[in-house]
């Protein structure tokens, strides 16, 4: 028996892992080619994709209740508050 109600099967985990390695290779290679602000944006975007895969499959958010998922993303939302409002200061200084 390979299935468990709250844990992905080793096959799914391996596929996700392969995807993660692929994204890593993409991040590494693209950083040589795409530079500047677009390069940074791409690097961050790929990091978000990897993190989402890890959260959903490795950290099993796929099998958790809505409340647990809310807790999982709440930290990022709150972090964005300090980011946004602090940047509001730095971007608008005379």
């Amino acid at each position, binding site marked *: 028996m390979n299935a468990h109600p709250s844990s992905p099967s080793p096959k799914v985990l391996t596929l996700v892992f392969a995807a993660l390695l692929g994204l890593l290779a993409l991040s590494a290679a693209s950083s040589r080619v795409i530079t500047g602000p677009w390069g940074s944006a791409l690097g961050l975007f790929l990091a978000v994709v990897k993190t989402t895969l890890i959260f959903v499959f490795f950290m099993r958010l796929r099998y958790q209740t809505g*409340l647990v998922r809310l807790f999982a993303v*709440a*930290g990022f939302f*709150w972090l964005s*508050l*300090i980011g946004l*409002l*602090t940047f*509001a*200061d*730095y*971007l*608008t*200084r*005379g």
Partner: protein
Amino acid sequence: MKIDAFSSRDVSADTPVNYFTRDYSLRSWLFTRDHKRIGLLYLISITFFFSIAAIAAALMRWELLTPQGDLVVSDIYNRLFTLHGVLMVWFFLIPSIPAVLGNFILPLMIGARDVAFPRLNLASWYLFMTGGLLVLYAILIGGVDTGWTFYTPYSSVYSNGHVMLMASGVFIAGFSSIATGLNFIVTLHKLRAPGLTWFRLPLFAWSIYATSLILVLATPVLAITLLLIMLERFLGVGVFDPKLGGDPLLFQHLFWFYSHPAVYIMILPGMGVVSEIIACFSRKRIFGYRIAAIAILAIAALGFLVWGHHMFVSSQSVYAGVVFSLLSFLVSVPSAIKVFNWVATLHRASIRFDTPFLYALGFLALFTVGGLTGLFLATLAVDVHLHDTYFVIAHFHYIMVGGMVMAYMGGIHYWWPKISGRLYHEWLARISAVTIFIGFNLTFFPQFILGYLGMPRRFHIYPPEFQTLNIVSTSGAVVLAIGYTLPLFYLGWSLFFGPRAGSNPWDATGLEWTTPSPPAEHNFERTPVVTQEAYDYPDLSL
């Protein structure tokens, strides 16, 4: 799971085994997982830290009797107000209601046997004590002179005080806060008794929930900020260092991102206690219960968006200042809504002026004054003149001492029979409450005037024309001290000689009042099932 709280134990018939008498050994206290005992451990600890911080305040007020710096030199004065701020904020106010009353009462109030993670709860107390002892040690070997706000570059580069030690102590205590908040959040989500839906919870539970959200989301930012100061002192260079292109103001952003929500950590539990007391002693459901609950959450959420109002004159962008000013006005709205709700509850109510209610009334008056003066400070143009004056000091003492500490005292008196199983001397307690109210206003109202007239904070040498008001303030502090000392005596006396309290001496609603006083170790013999709304007092108009 069987609960056997009333087993045949060799005690007299009128004292059944309860959480306190179950085991008197030191080991059973230091290794306890009982939320009630942990609440008492915190009670003793924070009273201890409060006393030290109060002595520092007494020395400061004594110094301020005269315009010259004659009691202490400036360096010592700086270390005194730093000590006072650090101990009062992190080792008294922030833990007070959550760690003492929240720990003791919350599980009882929701029909649970304990909090979600009892061992983590005990760990939080040990972390708290470790942090506190580190801070005390830092004070004993010379202290810190930066103020509790640790502004850079003074704290990270130039100060010759024991910044690393004190910052480490606060850092460790921060983990205690986070553990407590985490525990309460999970407890409220998962351990409510059957039938106890969110909107049937007493407002104290709502306020503890909102406070816990702030505790877990804000404290980590303080932690990293303190680490960065320590890093800069250790390496000699750091992220706030202008020589590298760093910005000292970045420290202030990070620091106040925590420290502003921190003041809501301090006041929200007080608001919760006041709701409980007002409902009980006016025999009435809190007016606008749902709005009150949502307002609690709104205060917590909006409180994260206003920190820049501490930085209006810091060289922060003026546009950011305008945004922070507007948001600060906005956060006053839910607080005002709550005040209206409390007052509306009192309207045409059947009021009993017992001690807890006196404290709640005091809270209403003093919190309102404190809150209104916050609006002055939130106004950019006015704050330019009031920043770093005694007006600010009066404002936050009105809220913290006039509001929060009065709520804390009210809560202690309200739940004392539950915690100790005894009743205290009512008239002595009422006299204390009134003494505190009078002493408080004498101490801090003159400070509004002093601030308006321009007396700066954190200075012990001032122009002679301010002396009269300073003398009034110090006299008030003496009265206040008497008011705070009296409860130590009559509450202590009640433990040994006070009449025994029944389960519900106030005839209040709420699950905690269905247990014996003091409660048994596991709280409830059978998990209660809740079918009524909160504050289900009989409608007296019928």
